[in-house]
């Protein structure tokens, strides 16, 4: 136990002196790095804009309240589009992620090189936000729902694939041995011993991703990929902050609803 003697009285210390100094040194390095970062940011910031930030904020909030409810009716169809983007996107992403997860899991992968390939796809898909995919896809397939759906799908592949292959790696090996000892083929082993074990996790992951996708698809319209984000973008460009506030309230309600559904389903399957 590290003890420090002060005026002949032993005082208990939590750490050895060297360890304590190393930790302080680590904090010092982090502080220096932070100050360096802050300097770069500060150099690139026009601080004059900040002097009236509180006035801007007050006027922004003032113009948002009360929300302009008159446009609610015209927002319902875009909201339905947003739900469709999220749902179809999740379905497409899951369809691709499902076989990919079996290739990426150590215990079911047919070959190490296939495993590396699958892992590379999963990492690439996870690294890039749906909004970036959407910008790209809008230039490729044109503005609209399809770009949004594919963007959501591309982003979901990595997320679902990663969680699913981790679930596959954690399965119990005994049923696999039992089924293979009956002389079952490779696909039969997967279908009758691996699949039943990962089904609850699979359902949970899918619904969880659907919930996240609802949030993400609300903003895809900002870059032209359809849904309620288009209306939000139009309102922002017109500086009609009352309408923006209405969109925010609708998004908030949708997100709460999808979170509730996802919590219910995950509660039921796990």
């Amino acid at each position, binding site marked *: 136990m590290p003890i420090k003697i002060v005026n002949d009285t032993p005082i208990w210390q939590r750490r050895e002196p060297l360890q304590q100094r190393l930790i302080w040194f680590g904090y010092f390095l982090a502080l220096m790095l932070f100050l360096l*970062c802050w300097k*770069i940011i500060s150099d690139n910031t026009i601080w004059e*804009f900040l002097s009236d930030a509180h006035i801007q904020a007050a006027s922004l909030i003032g113009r948002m309240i009360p929300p302009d409810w008159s446009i609610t009716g015209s927002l319902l169809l875009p909201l339905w589009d947003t739900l469709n983007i999220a749902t179809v996107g999740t379905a497409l992403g899951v369809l691709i992620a499902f076989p990919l997860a079996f290739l990426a899991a150590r215990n079911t992968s047919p070959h190490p090189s296939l495993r590396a390939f699958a892992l590379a796809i999963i990492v690439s898909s996870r*690294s*890039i936000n749906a909004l970036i995919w959407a910008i790209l896809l809008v230039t490729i397939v044109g503005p609209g*729902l399809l770009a949004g759906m594919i963007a959501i799908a591309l982003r979901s592949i990595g997320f679902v694939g990663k969680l699913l292959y981790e679930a596959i790696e954690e399965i119990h090996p005994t049923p696999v041995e039992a089924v293979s000892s009956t002389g079952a083929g490779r696909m039969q082993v997967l279908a009758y011993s691996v699949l039943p074990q990962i089904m609850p996790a699979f359902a949970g992951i899918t619904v969880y991703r659907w919930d996240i996708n609802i949030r993400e698809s609300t903003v895809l319209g*900002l870059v032209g990929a359809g849904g309620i984000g288009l209306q939000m973008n139009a309102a922002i460009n017109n500086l009609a902050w009352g309408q923006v506030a209405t969109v*925010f309230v609708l998004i908030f309600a949708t997100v709460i609803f999808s979170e509730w559904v996802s919590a219910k389903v995950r509660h039921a399957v796990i």
Partner: protein
Amino acid sequence: MSQSPQLLEPRLLAAKSGSWRPKPKISNASLRWGLNAAVLVYLVLLYFSVDINWSRVAQGMDRGLAFMGSFLTPDFISRGGEIAIGLRESLTMTFAATVIGILLAIPVGLGAARNIAPTPVYFFCRAIIALSRTFQEIIIAILFVAMFGFGPLAGVVTLAFATIGFMAKLLAEDIEDAQRDPMEAVRATGASWLQWINYAVQPQVMPRLIGLSLYRLDINFRESAVIGIVGAGGIGATLNTSINRYDYDTSAAVLLVIIGIVLMSEYLSGYVRKWTA
């Protein structure tokens, strides 16, 4: 296991005659058929309500192929300066925002833990968390750009704000799961509130807090690539410009840089987590 032999009998007979089927995943038949019907109705609705301009899609196909091809020939050089500036801004924004966000998230997280915070503080901190978690970073970025003007400061504030909700929620859950015995032991010595937090709570949550901080650093970097689209600084602006110019070779280079950094940070956080746990 607790089923009676009479119930098992038909399945055993079926197995002997070679016509065994696995049990359905959802045992309640009406729920099963209800779900199937709901999916069918949804698909019909989808078919009639979604209209996609297939001729436009067909037109874009060569552009899509060009983009995929550019991943094989990424161009890091001709816009190298812009990529380097954007990347530096993204990395500095990420680090500064993560530090500020975590420093602010710690008090909020302490306040949002039911076992150590008084009820009014608990509800106040939970409200902050809910507000920060509901809206996408990009929406928050739009508002902060409107307030603070274009540039990386709006990005830092956005990322820090999003970090508060994420970190505080997970920290609060971790504190709520912490063991009671050390807390009671330290309190019994007559420790002050700060000493109590420092010696009874902090050691229990620190390893997870470090892991989550690294994870959030990773998330903030990925998000910093997005919020540049609305003018909040970072590599997102570079990426957006290159895509709008159909300069796919540069876009591919930026995307590869992002993927590389995320991959690196994933390996790094794996090491640090092994080392702190």
